[in-house]
Structures are given as structure tokens and as C-alpha cells.
């Protein structure tokens, strides 16, 4: 039993990692009161930028950094539109996703079908040899450990640091934050850039470590699932982690079910992650009070300091 479960859990963590990055980034963005629906587009750009750089330089880490930078650059477009030009955040986010789809497909053209050769995930010394936990937790790609560090950092920043308090107050009430003298727009800019950078890393993880390959539209809805996760987590980082791995698990489970010979039509199994997202959203949103208590009050509204 354990023997079959260990690979499932190990694969679950890898499958959940792009979601961890993207959702944690979006969480910080939304905490500052900015709703960026362009996660899917930013992940795609992060994926192609990361993959192209990794292929050209042969350095996977350089690829990851490039993915991060590209994701941040995409979010900067969004920030100019919504924070400086006061464009509608929903429309701008959708535009960002559509633009990301087109741009990544265009730039990615010469990289279609190129394969990135890389070693399998390394096993951490000592930890990797632990029974059960070793193969599940400590034989992952290094970026998986980075995602855990990011989780710790985001949790500390938001709820234990002064800067995090300022960021949250900007999300709750930009007017009073402005009155106290905080630069609302600048803080929102930074939060948006952070979200874009992490979405870019999530995309780069997919293309450079997970697939590792570039395919047009390869993010395949993960950006949207990340957005759903933030709601699911009621804007709390720890729950984002739980949610991300839950969805990773659903994605993986369908393969194990098939390989184990369970006779459910494959399309139904493939639909599981999406149906699960809807169900989870319904369960969380059902209680209006939970959402109202937890969601940043000014989420999605333009703010002009005058």
C-alpha cells in the first residue's frame, strides 16, 4: 500500500508546485487590493522565457530567473494600465492573459519541439534516504524547496512584518493608508510586480523542470486554478499550500486510476481538476461571511490618490 502511495504523493508535490508559486504571488497582489486575472498569461510568458533562456544558455537557473523577470515585466504592463491609467482591472487582466497566449506562442515558435536535456531530480543527502518521507519530500527539484521557502517568507511578511501590515492596510482601505502618508500606488505596484514574478517562476518551473518542454498554451488553465486557490484559501498562505497540493493530487490521481485499470472514460478523469475547482469554490464561497471577512476590502477597485 505504502509502496503505491509514495510515488503518488511525490508526483503530487511536483504537480502542485507551479500552483504554489503562482497562487502565493497572486495572494500578495490581492492583499494589496489589486485583482490581476492575468496569471495564466504571466505564467505562459514565464514558461517560454524560462525555457528559451535555459535552452540557449544551458543553465536551468538562469532560465528560472528569466522566467521570473518576464513574469514581472508582464505584470508591469498590467500595473501601468490599472494603477496609473485607472483601467478596469478585470478587463486588463483578461487582456494580459490573451496577450500572454499570443506573445508566448509567437516567441515560442522556434522552441516548439525542442527538448531540454536535464538530469532527474536529485536526492538530498541524508533526508532523501528517510523511509517514506524521503522519496516523497526530499527527492524533488530544487525549485520545490524554493517554493517552501517562498511560502515561509510570504507568511512571515504578510502577518509578522511591519511592511506586510502596511501592504494589507493598503488593500483594506487605500484612502486611510493614503491619509496616513503611505504611497498607495507604489505599494500596489510592488505587490503586482511580486505577483507577476512568482507567476513567471511557476511557469518557468513547468517548462524548465516539469515538462521540460515548450508547448503552445502549456499552462493549460493552471493560472486560473491558481486564482481559484486564492479564494479557496481565503487569502491565507498555509491554505494555499494545502489547496495547491490537493489539486496536484487530483491531476496525478487520474493517471494512477487509469494505470490501475479503473474503467472510467478518460475524458471524465481529465475533467476532474476543473470540476474539483468548481466544487471547492462553491463550498468556500457559500458562506458570504467568510469571503467578506477575509477578502481585501478594496480588491479590484481602482484608486486615485486625490
Amino acid at each position, binding site marked *: 500500500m505504502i509502496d503505491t502511495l509514495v510515488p503518488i504523493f511525490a508526483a503530487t508535490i511536483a504537480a502542485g508546485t507551479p500552483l504554489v508559486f503562482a497562487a502565493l504571488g497572486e495572494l500578495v497582489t490581492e492583499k494589496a487590493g489589486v485583482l490581476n486575472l492575468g496569471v495564466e498569461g504571466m505564467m505562459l510568458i514565464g514558461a517560454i522565457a524560462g525555457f528559451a533562456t535555459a535552452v540557449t544558455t544551458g543553465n536551468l537557473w538562469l532560465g528560472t530567473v528569466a522566467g521570473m523577470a518576464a513574469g514581472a515585466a508582464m505584470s508591469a504592463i498590467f500595473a501601468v494600465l490599472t494603477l496609473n491609467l485607472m483601467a478596469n482591472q478585470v478587463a486588463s487582466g483578461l487582456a494580459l492573459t*490573451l496577450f500572454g497566449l499570443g506573445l508566448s506562442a509567437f516567441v515560442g515558435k522556434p522552441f516548439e519541439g525542442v527538448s531540454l536535456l536535464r538530469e532527474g531530480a536529485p536526492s538530498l543527502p541524508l533526508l532523501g534516504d528517510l523511509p517514506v518521507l524521503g522519496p516523497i519530500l526530499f527527492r524533488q527539484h530544487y525549485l520545490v524547496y524554493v517554493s517552501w521557502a517562498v511560502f515561509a517568507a510570504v507568511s512571515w511578511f504578510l502577518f509578522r512584518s511591519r511592511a506586510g501590515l502596511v501592504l494589507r492596510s493598503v488593500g483594506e482601505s487605500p484612502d486611510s493608508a493614503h491619509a496616513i502618508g503611505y504611497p498607495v500606488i507604489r505599494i500596489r505596484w510592488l505587490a503586482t510586480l511580486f505577483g507577476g514574478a512568482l507567476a513567471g517562476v511557476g511557469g518557468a518551473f513547468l517548462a524548465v523542470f516539469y515538462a521540460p518542454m515548450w508547448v*503552445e498554451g502549456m499552462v493549460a488553465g493552471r493560472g486560473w486554478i491558481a486564482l481559484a486557490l486564492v479564494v479557496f484559501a481565503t487569502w491565507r498562505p498555509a491554505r494555499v499550500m494545502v489547496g495547491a497540493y490537493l489539486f496536484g493530487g487530483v491531476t496525478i490521481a487520474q493517471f494512477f486510476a487509469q494505470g490501475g485499470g479503473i474503467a472510467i472514460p478518460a475524458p471524465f478523469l481529465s475533467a476532474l481538476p476543473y470540476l474539483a475547482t468548481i466544487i471547492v469554490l462553491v463550498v468556500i464561497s457559500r458562506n458570504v461571511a467568510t469571503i467578506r471577512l477575509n477578502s481585501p476590502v478594496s480588491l479590484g477597485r481602482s484608486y486615485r490618490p486625490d
Partner: protein
Amino acid sequence: MQLKLETRAEPSRLMGWLAPLFAAVLTLIAGFILFSALGRNPVQAFYTFFVYPIRDLNGVAELLLKASPLMLIAVGLACGYRANVWNIGAEGQLTLGAIFAGGVALYFYNSESPLVLPLMIVAGAIGGMLWAAIPAFLRTRFNTSEILTSLMLVYVAVLLLSYLVHGPWRDPQGFNFPQSRQFTESALYPMLISGTRLNASFLLSIAAIAVGYLFLNRSFLGFQMRVAGQADAAARYAGFDARRMVWLGLLIGGATAGLAGVGEVAGPIGQLLPSVSPGYGFAAIIVAFVGRLHPVGILLASLLMSLLYLGGEAAQMGLNLPSAITGLFQGMLLFFLLGSDVFINYQLKLVRASAPAAVAPLGATS
């Protein structure tokens, strides 16, 4: 001296018309730079992209054929967007429309009754509405974001269609390949111009634009939706039922998307395939915004968008450019438009460096 944005007393009507023009010009300039950067002669590239595809009657017919689903869906989506109902799952609703219409066509296979096509049209609209009703129900009953649920249902709809054409609806004479039988004459839209592929579904799309115009700009319900979108509180004060707006916004979008699905399977495709749309449901979102959520704007935007698609193909054959360049153009157009929109509600003012204190009292400039 520096430039400052200042709030206008009321939105500028002039700018409302100028902004899209502004965006189009900016897109052309960006395109010029892009083609030059790719080592193409920009004039020749523009010719290939924007003129070559519509050089003859067949080209124009293809343009209208491709614009038809875009305008149809976009006008439906615009009704919802005006009321702040964000249905982004039109692609899934289109797929369900195709499934429902296809089901009718297959059930009445070989029937020559003139009622088959009308029945397909009704079934397709119902299919799209049913799929849109799910997010509407979840939003009104459980407060669940329709943005996310409608999008997730796109993936589910596509998988459902895949299951059907690989399984129960597979052509019995088709060597088990994943496609349905080809529909018979009675289940296809009649052609409008012989020798081309332009069919009567285009008339339906034009009718939708007209109805959309009357509904949005001349009916009380349309007025209610607009108010609900602009000022939630005012709408509530006036006694407009917010739930009703959500239902209406989603169902109208679902119905038009479903009709677009019928137009595809009873038009150029003529059967059910694993995929019935190259992303019309998503492109229509751009069309709705570029058209400023106004039916006339949507009509023009859909033609422009369709031209971008055809141009992308021509660029691939004539200039060896990847067809993905279409997506680039579409994205840029939308960005420039969203950016230009700022001038509708704000105006640029030149202010002296010493003056900002008067504009931003706390000096907390961004």
C-alpha cells in the same frame, strides 16, 4: 512643468469615439515596428496582412464567415459585461451549443424536414444557456465567482464533446475515427453566396447586433443592466434585482455563444469534431471590449479581428511568419484601447512643478 491626469467633470463622449481610433493607430505603429524588426518590408507585410486576404469575393465571404461567430458572441457577452457580470466561458457555452445542435442533427439524420435546422438553432441556444446557467446559479445561490466557474466549465465542455465524438456519437461508418456523421442538407445553413462558404448564420449574427442595439440602448431592462454595472448602490436603491441581472447577463451570453456553436457545426464544419472552435469564445471577449460593449462597435471590431485571423494565415503562407502573430496584434490592440480609455474619464493637464501640492494635497504622489 509636468503632465498630470485630472478627473473630468463628466466622461467625454468625444474621447469615447476617439479612443478606439487612437488604439488602432498605435497598433498599426507597433505593427510597423514589429514587421521591420522581423526584417520584413512593412508595406508589403501590411498588404499581405490587411489587403491580400480580402482581394476577391471569396476573401470577403471568408472574412464575414469568421467575423460572424465573433460578433454574435461578443454582443451577448457585452450585455453581461455592462452589468458587471464577467462571463468568460463563452467557449464552453459555444461547445455545448454545438453539442445540442449536433445531437438534434444526428437524431434526425436523413430527415428532410425543413424543421431540423430551426430545431437545431433552438437546441443550440438552450445548450449554451444551460451551460451558462451553472455559473449563474452558483453565483446567485452560493456567491461563487462566475469568472472562475464559467472558465472551468470550458475545459469540462470540451472534454464532454471529446467523449461524445470518440464514443456514442461516432460515425458508424467512420472506421472508429473521432468524428460524427456528416450532417445532411436539412441540418445545414443555406449558402448566401454560391461558390463561397458564407451561409445564413451570418444573417442571424447581424440580427443579433440589431436586437442587441435595441435591447441595450432602447429598452428599460437594458438600462437597468447598465445602471447595475455602473453603480451597484444606485441600482439597489432603484429596486433593481441584482440576481436577475446576473441571470440575464449570463443567459444572454450563453444563448449567443450557443448559437455561434450552431453556426459552426451547421456551417463550415458540417459535423461534430473533437474541437469545434479555434477559440472564438475567447477572441469574442476582445471583440466586446474593443467594440466598447456597444453593438455597432462590436460589429466593426469583429470584422477587424476576423481580418487579423485571415491576415495571420496569409502572413504564414506569404511571409513565412508564424500565425501566432495574430494573437500578438489582438493583445496589443486591446492594451492600447484600455490605455486610451483613460482619456474618457480623465484629461491630461500641464501643471507647473510647484503646483502639484494643490492637486495632491499630501504630496504623496505616485
